[in-house]
């Protein structure tokens, strides 16, 4: 009689497989167990032997105890993904699985650190996105700025703004160029979770993606999951989030004031200031009525001629906006000794590479972590036994570093 693994949870195998973007057949190739058996494991109709589980664990790069974790509670979920095309279905499922992991890691860290309290505007917009007009989207972007007490200046760091207001953000490879990002407003903790895809793009593009996800949080917080399944609604929702992002990053009055003329040199100069792509600024200018159709056509022709469809000016020199919240949380939890790297990996039941990738930690961070300590040159000097000095300066007082009082 075959011996299974007590406590094995089939849906966790499916989760791990999907997170790696593997089909049953591909997993069969890696593990050497038939696709049918793997399917049986996933359905919970049988469980793998400890030896097979070990092989599966290696194949999908997950710790064995991951497969013993309880099944996730099902809950209504409205995850906004930037593409619903069938070509990216596998990638989207993969991304959604990683999205769950991001929530797991954040939930674990929240036992030890207090993340910023979520502070996102609730504008009381209609549940049906088809009822939202372009003017209302402009107003919503303006209201979001006012909600956070912002003026109409360029936003220094979009990712930091979202994190400071309670969003959990990760940058991650989503496995498909058509999938730019995902976001969800998680009801349990009232917090938005956002993954910005880094498979392609540029620092300004990723920044725009973060603003796009904010658009979903502000405009579509009450959209029901089934509405996303209707292609016309989905398309409109994406257009709205895009329009919101442009309006949020480029407030009409101040952007218009800064735009000295409608030409590529002027847009190029503004890119350095507003940190928005030239293409997005052209579209914004068209929506704002700053340019005629004919002018726009000629701009796009010149845009291509300059080779900017491939790469725009400053794309190679601007730095991406890196999320900091989870990284700092890890620094704090580990350096204060609240948890060890082993505790982390045991509790979140993920491979160290996944934790590091999702949380913006350097490769090998968990394996090589050592608590921060003061350099020896800044430590209190130890008194050295030097008889001649002792004789010359008896009773010398060693100056201790002064600890600054904090109120």
């Amino acid at each position, binding site marked *: 009689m075959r011996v299974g693994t007590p406590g094995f949870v089939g849906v966790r195998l499916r989760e791990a497989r999907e997170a790696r973007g593997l089909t049953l057949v591909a997993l069969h190739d890696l593990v050497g167990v038939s696709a049918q058996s793997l399917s049986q494991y996933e359905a919970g109709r049988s469980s793998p032997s400890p030896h097979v589980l070990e092989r599966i664990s290696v194949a999908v790069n997950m710790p064995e105890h991951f497969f013993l974790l309880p099944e996730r509670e099902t809950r209504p979920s409205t995850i906004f993904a930037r593409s619903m095309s069938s070509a990216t279905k596998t990638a989207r499922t993969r991304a959604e699985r990683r999205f769950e992991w991001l929530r797991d890691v954040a939930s674990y860290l929240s036992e030890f650190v207090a993340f910023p309290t979520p502070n996102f505007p609730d504008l009381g917009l209609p549940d049906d996105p088809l009822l939202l007009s372009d003017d209302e989207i402009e107003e919503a972007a303006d209201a979001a700025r006012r909600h956070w007490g912002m003026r109409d200046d360029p936003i220094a760091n979009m990712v930091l703004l979202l994190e400071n207001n309670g969003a959990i953000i990760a940058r991650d490879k989503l496995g498909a160029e058509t999938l730019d990002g995902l976001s969800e407003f998680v009801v349990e903790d009232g917090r938005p979770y956002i993954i910005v895809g880094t498979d392609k793009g540029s620092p300004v593009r990723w920044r725009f993606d973060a603003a796009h996800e904010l658009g979903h949080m502000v405009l579509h917080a009450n959209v029901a999951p089934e509405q996303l399944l209707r292609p016309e609604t989905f398309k409109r929702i994406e257009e709205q989030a895009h329009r919101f992002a442009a309006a949020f990053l480029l407030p009409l009055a101040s952007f218009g004031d800064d735009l*000295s*003329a*409608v030409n590529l040199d002027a847009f190029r100069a503004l890119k350095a200031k507003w940190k928005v792509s030239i293409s997005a600024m052209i579209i914004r200018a068209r929506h704002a009525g700053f340019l005629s159709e004919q002018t726009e056509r000629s701009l796009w022709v010149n845009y291509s001629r300059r080779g900017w469809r491939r790469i725009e000016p400053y794309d190679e020199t601007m730095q991406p906006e890196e999320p900091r919240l989870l990284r700092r949380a890890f620094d704090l939890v580990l350096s204060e000794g609240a948890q060890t790297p082993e505790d982390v990996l045991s509790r979140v039941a993920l491979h160290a590479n996944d934790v590091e990738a999702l949380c913006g930690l350097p490769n090998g961070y968990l394996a090589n972590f050592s608590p921060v300590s003061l350099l020896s040159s800044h430590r209190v000097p130890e008194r050295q036994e030097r008889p001649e000095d002792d004789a010359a300066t008896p009773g010398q007082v060693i100056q201790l570093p002064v600890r600054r009082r904090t109120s």
Partner: protein
Amino acid sequence: MTGADLERLFYSDFPRELVRKVLQNVYLAHQVAWDECHSRFARTEAENLLGYERRGKLEGYLRDAAGLFPGVEARVVRSEGSNWNHTELSSGLFVLTENSVQTPCALVRESGFRKTLAQSNQLSMLPDAPVPTDARYFAQLLHSRYRTLDPDEQRKHGYLPGSAYIAFPGRDLDSYLHSINLVTEFPDVVQAHMPEEWDSEAQLRYVRQARRMTA
């Protein structure tokens, strides 16, 4: 008509927002021309070409800026007796052209088209003279390069304009009836283009240098 009347009249035809954009475009043209010339040529050749490039850029930008303001017409005019084109922005009573000068608000050398435009000028500075209804007034955008005696500073910040004025020449082009210093008129635009490493003293020096030297 006094200088203040003339200025008011000018702004009633050329909206302040447009004049503000004109100054933005002076900065942009100086910067882009500098970058393009210095990235493609050795410094000596870049210096030779800079004036042409800057003029080409600025005239194009001015036409693009005019496009943002209904009622402001931009056109390219072939100068009489030459193969040169120049750009004229016209709105209401005023025609505006651009000229590069050596020092802030210096006189522009005479040319056929300027002479024609200036002579059609009906401007009078007599306080009580009424404004003729069929008048056509000539205004010039004058801009100069930022100059300093320190060669390192010149290399670093030579892309800046040194001054920008809207000036209203008399009929003989030998003096200005009135001028508007755009650097002091739109300090926010100037501030937005100041080099990051300049402290407030350096910025003040820049603004002082942008002033017309002689009355």
